[in-house]
């Protein structure tokens, strides 16, 4: 789960990671009021207006602007940014509509650095990465000049040690800003480690982390992703979720307890199990690529889905305008084939089946499942294997055209 920068900074502040003063704004009026408040609090006319969307590269896309002329200029900038379709390297060409702003105090910066933490799954450790190349895409730095990224791994039994933070601090040359700056960085690192562990972050990135002219170390950005598996122990996450930033169909699926990802193709897929669901997409593409046939979605109904969940899942596929045919591919283990069959029939009877449907059933209660489908009166093409099913669904969409 992703959250906005301003929400990340509120969490940072709670744990003692230094952040600039700022206020979120949902309207132009609120943005102007926020700027007024900041100018009064800091005695500095410079404020920054930042678009809040769940994607990086906002500055480059024109979503972050400095207002040197106080609240009036901040208002003008807010008018431009709020409601714009912000395009960055992470949004795709259609961009993302800006619905929220964050207005922040301007600071006198000396240097921009990069600081990030991820779960290094191959080392089974939290890894902190720091670089002198702040404010730019870190993926590019990692690719072009990997030697400029410093890394430390944290032993979960011990936690982050101060010497590891000092290693990064000296690697970044922070002693040049005074020994207090090294100390401030070490303190920030300790707070950030607390954020990651206690808030169950799967990713935590500060790009840029800035050194101010007075030697202070401040997080000028905050990107936090939460580990969805930990939501049972974070009741507050529900409030941080911004439904506008998520694919509406994916959100609907999540609420129904289904794993769903929207794709660009034309064959709707309903599958049990994540691996089989991916493999089903792959095999449709394998047979369909030269006929312009591709999967429209990833959908894993899971092992313990009820008939209601299957009905919901199949309805979502039926309602999608881009779907020209449907492939149901089930290898029943815990999932029983008759549950799938009943769910499919219920949804098809309710919404009507207007596109070709290919079904491949295998495993637990397969005979019962097949019987339910054949007695339903629905026009279903039965497939014997995954390959057979994929070929049939490709033919159904392409009409056999070569």
């Amino acid at each position, binding site marked *: 789960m992703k959250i906005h920068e301003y929400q990340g900074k509120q969490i940072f502040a709670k744990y003692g990671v230094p952040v600039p003063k700022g206020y979120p704004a949902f309207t132009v009026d609120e943005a102007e009021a926020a700027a007024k408040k900041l100018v009064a609090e800091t005695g500095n006319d410079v404020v920054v207006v930042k678009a809040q969307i769940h994607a990086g590269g906002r500055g480059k896309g024109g979503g972050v602007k400095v207002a040197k002329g106080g609240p009036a200029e901040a208002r003008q900038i807010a008018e431009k940014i709020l409601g714009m379709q912000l395009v960055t390297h992470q949004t795709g060409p259609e961009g993302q509509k800006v619905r929220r702003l964050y207005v922040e105090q301007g600071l006198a910066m000396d240097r921009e650095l990069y600081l990030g933490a991820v779960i290094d799954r191959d080392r089974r450790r939290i890894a902190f990465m720091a670089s002198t190349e702040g404010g730019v895409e870190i993926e590019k730095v*990692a690719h072009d000049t990997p030697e400029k990224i410093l890394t430390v791994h944290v032993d979960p039994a011990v936690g982050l040690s101060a010497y590891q933070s000092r290693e990064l601090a000296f690697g970044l040359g922070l002693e040049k800003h005074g020994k207090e700056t090294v100390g401030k960085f070490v303190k920030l690192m300790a707070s950030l480690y607390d954020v990651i562990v206690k808030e169950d972050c799967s990713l935590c990135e500060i790009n840029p982390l800035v050194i101010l002219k007075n030697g202070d170390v401040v997080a000028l950005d905050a990107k936090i992703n939460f580990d969805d598996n930990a939501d049972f122990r974070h009741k507050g996450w529900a409030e941080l979720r911004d439904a506008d930033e998520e694919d509406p169909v994916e959100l609907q699926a999540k609420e129904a307890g289904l794993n769903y990802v929207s794709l660009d193709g034309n064959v709707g897929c309903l599958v049990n199990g994540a691996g089989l669901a991916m493999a089903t997409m792959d095999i449709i593409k394998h047979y369909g690529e030269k006929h312009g046939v591709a999967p429209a979605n990833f959908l894993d109904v899971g092992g313990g889905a009820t008939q209601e969940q299957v009905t919901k899942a199949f309805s979502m596929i039926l309602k999608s305008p881009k779907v020209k045919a449907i492939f149901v591919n089930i290898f029943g283990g815990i999932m029983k084939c008759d549950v799938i069959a009943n769910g499919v029939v219920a949804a098809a009877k309710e919404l009507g089946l207007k596109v070709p449907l290919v079904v491949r059933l295998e495993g637990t209660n397969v005979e019962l499942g097949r019987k339910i489908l054949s007695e339903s009166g629905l026009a279903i093409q039965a497939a014997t294997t995954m390959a057979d099913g994929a070929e049939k669904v490709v033919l159904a969409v392409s009409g056999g055209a070569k």
Partner: protein
Amino acid sequence: MSVLIGKDTRVLVQGITGGAGSFHAKQMIEYGTSVVAGVTPTRGGETFEHAASVGTIKVPVFDTVAQAVKKTGANASVIFVPPPGAADAILEAFDAGVELVVCITEGIPVMDMLKVRRVLETLPKTRLIGPNCPGIITPGACKIGIMPGHIHKPGHIGVVSRSGTLTYEAVGQLTALGVGQSTCVGIGGDPVAGMDFVDVLTLFEADPDTHGVIMIGEIGGGAEERAADFIKHKMKKPVAAFIAGTTAPPGKRMGHAGAIISGGKGTAAAKIHALTEAGARVAPTPSEMATTLLSMMKK
């Protein structure tokens, strides 16, 4: 012969009184697995009963794993405890000296698994399979997990996989061709877990009863690349592979917590390339996993 489990494996079920735990405990007993104990804190002293086809089986329930191991001599544990208590259940099994721990639970926070892995590193004899996995089966001898037993057949092919249903798919294909399996291990779909491909391939290579291996990977992480390195330098037995997620978009989590391409790393293409270079044969479609392996074993 087989790897990790066999007829003499004595299984304890953590979470045996819960919905999933009790259902699958019965299924395991039906398959012939020797289920010797159950653990549910505060339910110690109760008896778990199953009217099996061979007569009623009574399994004693204990409050702690340590008690269960002491009283029954259980040497493997399977965990059906829900996510909030699952990591704790794994650690309890480790501490009681259980040497094979299989965790079925899906949805354990990665922070919890980092701690579990850290403890596991200090226990050279202990093996963890999963979490978020179907378990392990030696057909005809012992099933520890949730896979449908009837699709399996005793034989000489080892199967190791990050995906449950794709394992069933591979096993189904093998059995349909009359080819049996030595042991099938589902290592699970989480980013931080127990045994990985290399650990299981090492056992298959050393097992005289395993003649060939099907390995099923997916996008995310570098476990398949490490397996490729092992296959290239350490394995003589044929390995057929399939990697799911060729069509998966980057940055999207595809069902499994670990199935995500991040920062351009963990793509199916890179894994297929590494495995092919290493001498494994990668099935072009998931329908051809068994035939791909058999084509390597013909001579």
